[in-house]
C-alpha cells in the first residue's frame, strides 16, 4: 500500500516529539498529572501511527512483544520488594522517615515499568490487528 507523501513526512517529524512527551509524562508521573498508563498510551500512539503509515520503519515488533512478558515479571518483583521490609504487597519498601528524594525512586521505577507494559501491550494488540489478513 502506497501512502501519500504528506502523511509520511508529517509522521516522521512528529515521531520523536511524541516519544519525548510520552517519556516526560511517565517520568514526571509522581509530580504532575499523568503517570504510567497515560504516558504509555501516548508512547503506544507514537509507535502505532508510524507503524501504520511506514511499516518498514518499525522492525522490532517481535522483540517488543517478547519484552512484554518479561516486564510483567519485573512488576511483580518490584511490587513484592515491600513484602520483605514491611510485610505487605505494593507499598514503598523504603522506611518512612527517609528523605523524599530517596523515597520517590520506588514511584518512578513502578511508573516506568507500568508505562512500558501499557505501551508494549497496546502495540502488541494493534499490530496484530493491523497485520490481520496480510500474508
Amino acid at each position, binding site marked *: 500500500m502506497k501512502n501519500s507523501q504528506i502523511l509520511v513526512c508529517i509522521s516522521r517529524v512528529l515521531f520523536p516529539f511524541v516519544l519525548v512527551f510520552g517519556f516526560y*509524562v511517565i517520568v514526571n508521573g509522581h509530580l504532575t*498529572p*499523568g*503517570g504510567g*498508563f*497515560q504516558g504509555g*498510551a*501516548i508512547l*503506544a*500512539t507514537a509507535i*502505532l*501511527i508510524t507503524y*501504520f503509515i511506514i511499516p518498514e520503519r518499525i522492525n522490532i515488533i517481535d522483540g517488543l512483544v517478547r519484552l512484554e512478558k518479561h516486564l510483567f515479571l519485573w512488576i511483580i518483583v518490584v511490587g513484592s520488594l515491600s513484602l520483605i521490609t514491611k510485610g505487605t504487597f505494593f507499598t514503598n519498601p523504603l522506611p518512612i522517615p527517609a528523605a523524599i528524594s530517596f523515597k520517590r525512586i520506588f514511584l518512578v521505577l513502578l511508573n516506568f515499568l507500568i508505562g512500558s507494559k501499557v505501551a508494549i501491550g*497496546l502495540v502488541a494488540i*494493534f499490530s*496484530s*490487528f*493491523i*497485520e*490481520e*489478513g*496480510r*500474508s
Partner: protein
Amino acid sequence: METVVLANFIQVLLIIITIALVANKNNTVVAILFSVSSLFLALLYFFNKAPDVALAEIAVGSAIMPLILIISISKQREYVVITHVKDDFVNSLTGEGRKVLQDFADSNNLELKIYDRDIDNIKGIFRERNVDLIIDRSDDNKIYYLRGKKSSLLISKLENKVKNLENIKIIKEEEVETND
C-alpha cells in the same frame, strides 16, 4: 467567572458535535468527529479540576479510538480472494476471471487482493472469516467454482453479475459455527 462561561460554551458545542456524530453516515467523518468530541471532553475535564482524567481521555479517546476506526475502515475496503488455480484465469492481468473480479471490485468501491497460497499461511487471529472468495476448478470440464459465504451480500451481487457466463459457477456455502 470567565471559566464558567467558557465551560458552558464548550458543553453546548459538545452537544452539537455529538448529535452530528450520531446523525452522520460517513465512516471517515465519524472517526474525525469522534476525535474532536473527545478533545472537547478532555477540555471540560480540565476545567472541572481533573487533569489526570483529561490526559487519559486525550491519549485514548482522541488518538487510539480513531486509529481503531481508521484501521477497520481500511480493512473493510479489501476483497480477499484465494485461488487454487494455477493457470491464467486470475493470475495474469488479462485473464477472464481477473477481469470479472476487478470490474466487480471497482464497481463496489473495494480493493481486490488475490493470494495464491493456502488459508493457513495468512497472518491473523480470525483467519477463517477474513476470506471472501475461494476459486477452484473441476478436473474434467472447464468450469471454475467460486465459493463464498451465503450470508454475504456481495456474493449475491457477484452471482447476478456472472449469470450469463458459462464457465463460472457460484457455490454459496452455509456459515459454519466455530467453537471459539
